[in-house]
């Protein structure tokens, strides 16, 4: 011990004259740091209620709850996360993982209340003083727990693509598929948006885990056309995908294709359910498109004897005759159809109902009939001169291409219309070496075709002429008469004529244009062929559409004797795509089963 040890402790006194370190709350405020993990804030408009925050929360502090004034809709569960601060540990993994980025934290940390129940609230819905706080925890730039980028899909280059009808999209490898499947958060928003309500998170999980038999079984639970839908589905699911709110949506369609591509047809039977024993009843299906064959598949599984009548030489309907092979190669479609036939479904090809057999014949011979005849009639241009021999219809051109016929479209081709048929016709013409103009009455953003199709058609060299109202088709002069035609159109401008309705194209006076084409392909719309339905069949119809009830039933039959009639697909629904037809077919099969077995009828 020395003298310093007795004196040094008195040095503490010097602190008495220094400024204290403490803050004089409440005179001085001490806000949380800019990154402070304080009370949650949520942009309820951007949030889609996917529940990924709930899934990652290890404390189960987050519950997705219904919110007043918010309904479930496409791509939005209508639920919002409610945080329980009795459980929350402020780790902010919910913020890090939030697909849309709507969930964040404020830098507010003081909240005093005598009522313990208030500390459980729905951020962004229950108003709080820190709503919209500028400061607080945000995930750092470049830091996300999820991958916002889709695994790129190998595709033929556009220059290469137009040289042949080879399939454009090459498909995922196993590693690519598993990586893409890993992006899914299993929120299930896609299930609600899919017309067939496929178990999308389920089969994506199967891809992730490499269990393709399970994947295939899940696909076939709701859709017996995975090869076709894995390529050409309108993929509403991807529009609803929660990952798409903050990046590329999961490539659901390509993953479906991956599963179907990876399993050989000969191995399908091992993975898929067997048909029930025969129930001794017969069902006829009119039309071997995706809807009709789906109905046939599910009916066969339920033990019905099913015969499908198809007027064309091959089964597949619009999948075969409407969609070019560079989008859906025939072997892929044949695989889907082949499996359905392997269950004992008979397809009578080249038999037209209304010509070779009548609907009343079917009603007499079968316990039930399912009508799934689609929209085979192409509507015309309805302008003067539209009966010119060089005015062709898009559906017929695509069907001729499928049958391998010589199209003879010539060098200069106009395609009139903005739907998928128009895009397919244009790209088919491009592959036959033609220069193609696509003329559409409205603007590009109004076109009903898939955005991908429009983009690819343009990339492959088609010229898009928007806002062009067809006026007339004139025969070419001189030696070309009858071999080429002048297409006359009027340039238009979009006019907002009525509030709340889409703008209308209005011809600009005097702005007439004309161009000489070897072929003019009209693809403005299609209608049904219902000439085979007679009054005696008892099918109520309105505006060229059979009216069906919630079960898909059009006529209960038995007047005086005959099977019930069900209908579905493009013929009936408004979506007019393959997946909706498949959903209708599935529904009809279940309804027919209930109707014929007397269960819950």
């Amino acid at each position, binding site marked *: 011990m020395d003298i310093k*040890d007795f004196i040094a402790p008195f040095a*503490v006194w010097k602190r008495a004259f220094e400024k204290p370190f403490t803050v004089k709350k409440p005179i001085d405020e001490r806000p*949380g*740091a800019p*990154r402070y993990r304080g009370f949650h804030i949520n942009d309820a408009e951007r949030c889609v209620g996917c529940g990924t925050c709930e899934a990652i929360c290890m404390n189960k502090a987050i519950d997705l709850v219904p919110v007043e004034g918010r309904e479930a809709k496409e791509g939005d569960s209508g639920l919002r996360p409610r945080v329980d601060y009795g459980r929350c*540990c402020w780790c902010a993994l919910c913020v890090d993982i939030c697909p849309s980025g709507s969930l964040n934290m404020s830098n507010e940390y003081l909240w005093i209340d005598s009522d313990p129940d208030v500390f459980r609230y729905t951020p962004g819905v229950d108003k709080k003083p820190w709503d919209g706080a500028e400061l607080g925890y945000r995930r*750092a730039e470049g830091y996300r727990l999820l*991958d916002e980028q889709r695994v790129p899909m190998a595709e033929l280059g556009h220059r290469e693509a137009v040289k042949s009808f080879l399939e454009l999209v090459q498909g995922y490898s196993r590693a690519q598929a598993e990586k893409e499947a890993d992006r899914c*958060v299993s929120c299930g928003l896609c299930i609600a948006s899919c017309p067939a309500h496929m178990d999308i998170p389920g089969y994506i999980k199967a891809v992730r885990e490499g269990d393709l038999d399970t994947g295939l079984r899940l696909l076939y639970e709701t859709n017996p056309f995975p090869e076709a839908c894995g390529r050409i589905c309108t993929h509403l699911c991807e529009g609803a995908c929660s990952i798409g709110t903050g990046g590329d949506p999961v490539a659901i369609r390509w993953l479906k294709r991956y599963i179907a591509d990876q399993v050989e047809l000969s191995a399908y039977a091992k993975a898929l359910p067997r048909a029930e024993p025969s129930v001794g009843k017969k069902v006829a299906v009119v039309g071997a498109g995706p809807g009709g064959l789906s109905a046939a598949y599910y009916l066969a599984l339920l033990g019905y004897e099913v015969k499908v009548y198809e007027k064309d030489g091959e089964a597949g309907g619009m999948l075969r005759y409407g969609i070019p092979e560079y989008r859906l190669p025939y072997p892929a479609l044949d695989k889907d159809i082949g499996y359905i036939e392997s269950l004992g479904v008979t397809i009578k090809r080249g038999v037209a109902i209304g010509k070779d057999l009548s609907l009343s014949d079917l009603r007499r011979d079968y316990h039930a009939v399912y009508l799934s005849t689609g929209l085979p009639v192409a509507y015309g241009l309805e302008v003067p001169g539209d009966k010119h021999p060089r005015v062709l219809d898009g559906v017929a051109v695509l069907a001729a291409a499928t049958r391998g016929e010589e199209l003879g479209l010539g060098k200069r081709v106009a395609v009139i219309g903005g739907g998928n048929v128009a895009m397919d016709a244009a790209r088919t013409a491009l592959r036959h070496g033609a220069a193609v103009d696509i003329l559409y009455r409205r603007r590009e953003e109004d076109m009903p075709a898939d955005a991908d199709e429009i983009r690819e058609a343009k990339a492959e060299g088609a010229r898009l002429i928007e806002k062009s109202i067809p006026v007339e088709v004139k025969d070419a002069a001189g030696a070309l008469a009858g071999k080429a035609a002048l297409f006359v159109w009027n340039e238009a401008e979009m006019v907002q004529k009525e509030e709340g309705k889409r703008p209308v194209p209005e011809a600009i006076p005097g702005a007439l244009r004309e161009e000489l084409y070897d072929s003019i392909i009209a693809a403005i719309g299609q209608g049904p062929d219902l000439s085979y339905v007679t009054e005696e069949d008892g099918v109520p119809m309105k505006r060229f559409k059979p009216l069906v009830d919630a079960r898909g039933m059009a006529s209960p039959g038995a007047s005086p004797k005959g099977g019930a009639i069900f209908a579905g697909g493009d013929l009936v629904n408004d979506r007019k795509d393959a997946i909706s037809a498949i959903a209708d077919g599935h529904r009809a099969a279940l309804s027919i089963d209930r109707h014929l077995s007397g269960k819950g009828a």
Partner: protein
Amino acid sequence: MKKEKLRVIPPAERANPDLESGKYLLMWQGPQHPGITGNMSLKLIVEGDSVVDCETHVGYLHRGFEKLMERRLWMQNFPLVCRIAVPEPDFNEYCYAAALEELAGIQIPDKAVWLRTLSLEMIRLASFLMWIGGQAGAFGHGTIIQWSVTMRDYVLDLFEELSGGRIYHMYIIPGGVRGDVPAGFFKHVLEIMDTVQKNLDDIELVMFHNVVFKMRAEGLGYIPADWVDHYGITGPNARAAGVARDLRKDLGYLAYPRLDFKTIVGQKSDAYERARLRLLEMYQCIDLIRQIVDQCPKDGPFREKLPNPLYWKIPAGETYVAAECTRGEYGFYVASDGSDKPRRVAVRGPSYTHAVAVMERLARGVNIADVAGLMVSLHTYPPEIER
């Protein structure tokens, strides 16, 4: 008072006194007692004012972390592990993340290496600052804790700025760290280091040149060097006994091989020597933090992209990752069976050794008034005993 007389080696055997004789008193210190570092208790048998026998009781703080982790996804355990040692969460975060990275074969970016090192040194300093207040307080010197906890709060301010949390930083995430340093952060770090250093000088003066502290701490809880391997003593408790054992040097993890520092060792591990060594390590922390600020890369990624945390599976395997925390070797044993959750996690905290076996032996013969000071001088945290 003769220091040499006090530096006795307590007997290895338990006393086993006859409690019915009326000579002894059985008393409990803790679990609610200011002289206990956290929720554990000491069952003391005293004769007069000296302790004849001591039995430690733990279990008041058992939260079942290791078992909980077997039921949570790999990433969900990340907010959980920091809670195993409250004053030093970052060592848990680091060991857990590094174990996962090793099992999954993930290389983290260099920037993350530096920021992790910074985070670990900052929490080392904060933890020592809290401890030194406790050590002074245990000997009745209440002023120091007011100073040192203020300094700790300044370090926690830095954590708040860096990670958004003061106590549980949850900054070291598997794959790297959770964000780059905010603008102006390094400047704040250097300013606070200056402030803390100035305060350490004051503490050195009034605490280590204090006759009361010297008289009570010198010779108290003497740990001979040959106990180090016998009991598995690590950290300052071992270094004070002259055993140069520091995982930062011995394992050379993170950025430590690129930092200039020497392992500090003492000669005779008693309460005073250990306190002095920890004070020197605080100065060393400040020096290391300044070096890190100087050398940390300014650009580059701070986290390696990992698979979707909802399904992340780690290949089957096991590993043990250790780091030098303020109190010694802190380690995580992690075993994976290839699924999306750990098969087994075992946490090795230095307090298990120091607060149970070593404490029980050192307490024998100690004056009852010095039990609290002795316990604090071992620097133990009960939460890490009970995982």
